[in-house]
């Protein structure tokens, strides 16, 4: 090791200890849609329990034991979150639900992702991935560096195809 001679115990912990404790402080205001998210979770638990009722049960080792347990746990936790959320104040001057959930960039990427899923089965992997990368990069860079985006997409796709198709013999979709 090259720096054995250095006398001062150089340590990564010398960096300033930024104590970000914000995650431990309960928020006074609820985020837009927070209640809806908890309610959806509760619904998932309820559905999970409902469908578990059809499974074989009756013994402590039946296949339905864990699904029921997990569903009940989901309902209990989301129930608590729901109640706590109700006690919090609604945020007054924050962003609306749509703006909070889906800023423009995220919306565009999501649409691209869905379009990619739809295109994949009939455009095949290589063209659809190439289009996804190019459009994604060009949009995110606000229309600048189009040539660079095309080059980078082509190069990274070539590397990926080489590794997966030819080294790992994965037949691409």
């Amino acid at each position, binding site marked *: *090791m090259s*720096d*054995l001679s*250095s006398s001062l*115990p*150089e*340590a*990564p*912990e010398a*960096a300033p*200890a*930024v*104590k970000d404790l914000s*995650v*431990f402080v309960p928020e006074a205001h609820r*985020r837009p849609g*927070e209640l809806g*998210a908890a309610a959806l*979770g509760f619904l*998932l*638990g309820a559905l999970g329990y409902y469908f578990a009722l059809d499974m*074989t049960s009756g*013994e*402590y*080792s039946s*296949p339905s*034991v*864990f*699904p029921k347990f*997990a*569903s009940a*746990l*989901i309902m209990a*936790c989301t129930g*608590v*979150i729901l109640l706590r959320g109700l006690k919090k104040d609604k945020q007054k001057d924050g962003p609306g639900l749509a703006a909070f*959930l889906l*800023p423009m*960039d*995220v919306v565009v*990427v*999501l649409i691209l*992702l869905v379009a990619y*899923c739809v295109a*994949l*089965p009939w455009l095949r992997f290589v063209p659809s*991935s190439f289009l*996804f990368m190019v459009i*994604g990069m060009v949009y*995110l860079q606000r229309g600048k560096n189009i040539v660079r*985006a095309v080059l*980078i997409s082509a190069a*990274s*796709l070539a590397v*990926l195809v080489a*590794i*997966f198709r030819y080294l*790992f013999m*994965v037949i*691409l979709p």
Partner: protein
Amino acid sequence: MEQSFQYFLIPFLSWEMMLLIWAGVFAGIWVGAIPGLSVTMAASLLISFTFSWDLNHALALICGVFVGGVYGGSITAILLNIPGAPAAIATGIEGYPLAQLGEAGKAIGLCTTVSVFASFVGILALSVAAPVIANFSLKFSPRDFFLLAVMGILLIGSIGGGDPVKGVAAGAVGVLLSMVGMDPSTGELRYTFGNIHLMAGISFVTAMIGLFGVSEALTQFRNAGKKSPKQNLDRIIPSWATFVKYLPLSIRSSLLGVFIGALPGTGGDVAALLAYDQAKRTVRNPSRPFGTGAYEGIVAPETANKGAIGGAFIPMLTLGIPGDAVTAIIIGALYIHGLKPGPMLMIETPHLFWMIVSCLSIASVALMVLGLVSVKPFAKIIEIPKEIIMPVVIILSVIGTYAIQNSVVDIFYMIGFGILGYFMRLYGYATGPMVLGLILGPMLDANYRRAMQGAENQLLPFLEGFVTNPISLFLTLSIVFLVFSQTKVYRRWRGFE
């Protein structure tokens, strides 16, 4: 003894084998780093590839890929918050915040150094204590595996973000999703709704790539203006003092890794998660608070998953029982090459044991060199603007997911998990617990039910087992302690607060 040493020298005396080990480690680092490509996949491909080779050469290559691959998984976890393999999930918890602080180089450097150390601990345990550990690992009953899974689940308390209730909720959803598919013990279909794709179950690697990779990419697009962090690459090799400082933790975690790796069916992923959890609970003055970039949180899982490599070979070489998925494939390779893996393997072909020990040692040295050399180029990856890197990351996630089992449906699942993960993060539900639930759910379910069946479905004999069997009692008490150690009373007494 002299004979063993001669066997140990086999790879040193053949330049082909040396070359293959180094090549294997190099390839392994990349295989591990790319999400979706796993050492298991690489090893099974290599078996066909090396069919006509000499067995020693084939094993040298596979050992190299194994060591390199377990290491490579951590690189992407630190740089992009996409663990290249499940064994690297715990590494990302602290590694990714470090990369965001511009300390990716230091983090990977430390990771490399302690990895090599741990890998040697594993090899040492393999060479001196294999039969003892193997026989002890057989004593682990389904009840004990259930308890180990419960210990893993307790980790939700550590990685659940600020709100434990939300963490538990996310973990429970993970467990519920892991139940989808055919119940392996009765063949009953759970939550499949007559769909053949659901019958095969939801692969947790698919979920992992989506919940970490794609959801990370989506979250990044929220704060568009933010620049990628500038990386400080001056000192990537940790000083001797730093290494010594983490030595006790390294030894503890790598031994834990050896042991978990030696248990049939559990590998580096469970080992790394348990090691991270015990570090978080026992380290008193971490370099930064856990969750914000504590180096201890990298040392513990990294030493555990490297220790698990040597560990996984222990039951394989002494009993013919695979310690994890990769050693299961190596057993297959031995069959194909005309050997008979089993308890007699060490007696009938003693050279094999020492040759593997030696291949693993050389691979560890190779890892030190290749790992440190590649720190700088790897760390540069995060300096690429995210507008360019993120679309590539998404496509990488797509192809990696597809490659796991050549299924287009998995791609849709993965993207679905990515979108779900994005919304979960917005509302303060950490994605880690969900992946944890997906990994540990089947282990919990199957082993609980086995233990119950062993007690003939009687509640009382089932519960009795937890206190009458010494291993179960030890694990039960450990769990009680783990829960107790989270309480205020204990933390005040030990001076944590």
